[in-house]
């Protein structure tokens, strides 16, 4: 049993024990019920006094119902608290792993949602399976105590009936594939139309375009009909399983009545035991669920077993924000990069796509860890620094920032102690203040009610970096969506708001590179040259960097 599964069952022993006890009480009462019923029935049809039997039946039945209800409530509590506990642990661990996490975001989300829910069910599934096994075994034993022949007939008829009613619940692959393909086609058409919604709304062609999107619908209809027909050929036999076993046992019980071994009430009891005995068959899907829950737990183990990178312990001494790279290599993106960036200077990083610009930006503030070599900030290796010290010293803005937090102001202050004053100053510098005050709630507008264009999000991301007042500012293509006029205005505002800070600017624009003190020209993961823009401009290879993919 893996670590997560073990901790799940051991973590909450009291509730788990209570749940198991309630399930066992319900099972025992359920097993006593047919016999109690049989006695009461015998009394009833013989016209004798039935009250004592009915009282006993009431006691047994009432206990079963009460235990069932208690077990249902406990199941919900045990399951939900196990799931929440796992989710909190996994969230913490994934945040500790940070950017070093080997799990892609989609994968991590599915582990946090689906796998935690699946693994959280483990205790409930185990209890349910144990209870079902106890009930089924008990029913066979009680059937045997009633008349051993009945137990034999039951045990003999179950496999035969299972064979008879074996239902291939698998649909033919063709039906499903056809349905999903047409369904996907419809979604793709709708998505096309949604992307062109402004055109559609402005041209008043909504109805025509709706008909165009819906064109594959008749094919979906036909594929759907096919699916139901296929199912109809297969599932109906499953309904025969229980009657087949019931009839076999009834026949055997009938001979018992004829021979005087059994009372008429016993026939009813036998019928009850058959239903209880067959209960395990109904629990077969739970075995799959159990396997799934364990697989979920294993996937969580994989997350929790991944060691987070060790954090440093040093505090950053005061300094100008100078950066030094010594033999830095990052996977295939950077090879043996040596670089000195003087504190307070503005450095542009340019190069074709795939030349390692973002990897270089990432290692400066420890977002990516070099495989070899080291990065020094004011003489201290960044890996030796305390996380909070490093984060306060190096601020990042990205081309496509993920904005987090409840409101626009939250998103700008995210993770920092910036107050409303610094948030507004940062937004003014990033040329986004005018936009924010035009939102329905200004700075308090909820982020999710604010559909932002790429350029708007970019400027809020920039404001977020500025609001932290860092020693080194890394702009990873963070002004790419701004027009050139706004961009140069923003650059001036940053220089004014954060004077003397080191700025590392990844860019595709010649104008931006020209305004920097120095340009680091990357090519194929190595530094091709470090020099001012006007010096490099004479090289055709350097000029070609700016024509790539850039609209004029």
């Amino acid at each position, binding site marked *: 049993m893996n670590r997560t599964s073990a901790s799940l069952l051991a973590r909450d022993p009291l509730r788990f024990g209570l749940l198991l006890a309630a399930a066992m009480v319900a099972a025992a009462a359920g097993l006593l019920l047919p016999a109690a019923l049989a006695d009461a029935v015998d009394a009833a049809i013989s016209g004798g006094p039935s009250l004592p039997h009915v009282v006993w039946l009431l006691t047994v039945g009432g206990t079963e119902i009460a235990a069932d209800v208690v077990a249902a409530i406990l199941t919900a509590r045990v399951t939900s608290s196990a799931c929440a506990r796992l989710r909190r642990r996994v*969230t913490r661990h994934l945040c500790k792993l940070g950017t070093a996490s080997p799990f892609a975001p989609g994968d991590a989300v599915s582990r946090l949602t689906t796998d935690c829910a699946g693994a959280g069910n483990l205790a409930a599934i185990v209890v349910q399976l144990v209870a079902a096994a106890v009930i089924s075994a008990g029913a066979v034993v009680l059937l045997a105590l009633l008349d051993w022949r009945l137990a034999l007939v039951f045990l003999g008829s179950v496999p035969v009936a299972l064979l008879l009613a074996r239902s291939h619940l698998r649909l033919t692959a063709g039906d499903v594939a056809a349905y999903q393909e047409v369904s996907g086609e419809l979604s793709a058409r709708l998505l096309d139309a949604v992307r062109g919604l402004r055109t559609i709304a402005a041209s008043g062609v909504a109805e025509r375009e709706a008909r165009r999107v819906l064109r594959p619908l008749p094919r979906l209809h036909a594929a759907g009909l096919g699916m139901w027909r296929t199912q109809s050929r297969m599932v109906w036999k499953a309904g025969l399983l229980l009657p087949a076993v019931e009839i076999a046992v009834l026949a055997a019980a009938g001979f018992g009545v004829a021979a005087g071994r059994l009372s008429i009430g016993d026939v009813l009891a036998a019928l009850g035991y058959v239903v209880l005995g067959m209960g395990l068959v109904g629990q077969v899907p739970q075995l799959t669920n159990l396997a799934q829950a364990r697989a979920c737990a294993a996937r969580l183990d994989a997350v929790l077993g991944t060691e987070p990178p060790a954090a440093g312990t040093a505090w950053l001494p005061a300094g100008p924000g100078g950066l030094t790279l010594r033999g830095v290599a990052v996977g295939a993106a950077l090879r043996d990069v040596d670089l000195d960036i003087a504190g307070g200077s503005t450095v542009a990083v340019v190069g074709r796509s795939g030349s390692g610009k973002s990897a270089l930006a990432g290692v400066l503030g420890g977002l990516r860890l070099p495989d070899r070599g080291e990065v020094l900030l004011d003489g201290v290796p960044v890996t030796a620094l305390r996380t909070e010290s490093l984060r306060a010293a190096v601020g*990042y803005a990205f081309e496509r920032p993920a904005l*987090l937090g409840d409101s626009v102001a939250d998103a700008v202050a995210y993770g920092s102690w910036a107050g409303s004053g610094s948030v507004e100053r940062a937004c003014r510098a990033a040329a986004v203040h005018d936009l924010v005050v035009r939102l329905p709630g200004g700075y308090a507008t909820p982020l999710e009610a604010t559909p932002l264009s790429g350029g708007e999000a970019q400027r809020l991301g920039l404001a977020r970096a500025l609001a932290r007042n860092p020693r080194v500012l890394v702009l990873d293509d963070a002004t790419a969506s701004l027009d050139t006029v706004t961009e140069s205005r923003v650059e001036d505002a940053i220089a004014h708001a954060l004077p003397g800070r080191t700025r590392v600017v990844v860019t595709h624009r010649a104008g931006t590179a020209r305004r920097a003190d120095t340009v680091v020209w990357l090519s194929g993961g190595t530094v091709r040259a470090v020099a001012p823009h006007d010096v490099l401009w004479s090289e055709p290879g350097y000029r070609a960097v700016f024509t790539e993919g850039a609209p004029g």
Partner: protein
Amino acid sequence: MRLYWKALGEQWRGGLVLLACSVLESAPAFASGRLVERAVSQGFAAGSPGTGLAWLGVFAAVAVLGALGSRLVWHRLGTVVEPLRDVLVGAVVRGVLGDGATPRHAPDASGVARFTQHIEVVRDATAGMLVQARAMVVTTVAALAGLFSVAGALAWYVAVPVLLALAAFGALLPTLAARQRALTLADERVASSAGAVLSGMRDVVACGAEANAVASVDAAIDTQATAAVRMGEATALRTLVVAVGGFVPLLLVLLAAPGMVTAGELTAGAALGALVYLAATLQPALQGLAATTSTVLLRLLVALRRLGESCPPPSRAGGTAEPDGSALSLRGVTFGWGAHAEPVVRDLDLDLEPGDHLAIVGPSGIGKSTLAGLLTGLLEPQRGRVLLGGRPVTGVRPGLRHRLIAFTPQESYLFAGTVRENLALLAPSATDTDLLAAADAVGAGELLDRLGGLYTELGHAAGGLSAGEAQLLSLVRLYASPASVVVLDEATAHLDPAAEARAERAFAARGGVLVVIAHRLSSALRAGRVLVLDGDATLLGGHDELLAASPRYAELMLAWTAGREQAEAVPPLSPLSR
């Protein structure tokens, strides 16, 4: 939601067929108690096992008949469920694309995926209700009918508690549905808050905001756990109600039967039959009904409600006004995105006569596209009026308004279909010659040749075309339209400057009113008049006039020309950017 029930109602023929199949399916439930009782009291207990076996044989035959009935149900299911899904898909697509839809709240890829998922849940759950819940209802009714036919004297003892339990269960359903919905929303919130943090991990780390991230996800996790417990409690209550409802009749019959048997009101056989119905058929059917109803029905209700919420109802009937000409005028127009928000435009006056060419310039995100929305009648100003041919533009008969005003945004709309279908979107009656002429005019002739002509099929999401190529095709479409007012909203942003100039000149020569929301300031040089939006003030005038009168405009131009020297030193690009 109402649409669903209406659509379901329209499938009443299919429903009747299902009901007919149900009669067959209910045969075992109706006959079970009676047949078992006969087999025992006339056969085995009477000393003739042969008769007993014969009755059991009949029971087996009836069981097979019932199974065949359920096969028929499955077979006919599609004829009810598939038309229903068709109606829902149609309503969702029309709702998303329809007049009530605003682009600012349009669903994204995951939104479209969610629609598909909700509709599939509705389809599956409806099928589930029709198969399982219907079968359980049929079984319950058949077992009650069988019981009454065997032992009518016991009817009240059985019917009253069962009906009370069903009524109590029905009363519980709204609570169950509300809690299920809360749970679904809480689940979605866990996924969305975790998704935001995990896909933004780079930013979380860069901001040193791990604690904020954990706290936001933790809040969602706790809400979900509470919602799950509350759902579990409601489910337990449901279990209690139904179990009591199935158990009490048994007790009452057992208490009443001896007296009735003694008094001769009931035969022993009838009492046995009644008890078989109660214990072996009615009780399991009730429990099954409660279980399937509360899983399948709740899934159905939640999905329907989510669909209704995320799919805006079609709204806003258009006006009926007939404009006189196609001149546009704005009188004191003010618009902002909220009551407390700073207005995007304030007290704007503007007159555009046919032949006018206006460029709108200003920094990114200042509200240029909002102005386009006002001009085309997609947005209503908070104060002031936008007039088309002397009539308020939003009051003009929609069909006519769309013929008179054509608009193309920065993001191109191209759909899977032939190039021709795409180009003729705004001019359905255009001939091939018209379309080819339009293509030549805006400079897309070469592109059309490269694509292989008008009858080439385009893929989804303009697959295979660059952003610039997609924009060129949108421009052809616009050029070919009959509109006399054309608004280009950064519609040439992905073209290189030369291609942009060619396209803009073509539109200027086309006649009518041309409004260009400029991506580059070069658009201003080509226009007759320039409107500068700059947050605090709007300026309107000719290029030279503005250069002289407005330091702000001069500054913009200066910054731009300085950047342009550098850009022009760059070797020339291919005609279209990739």
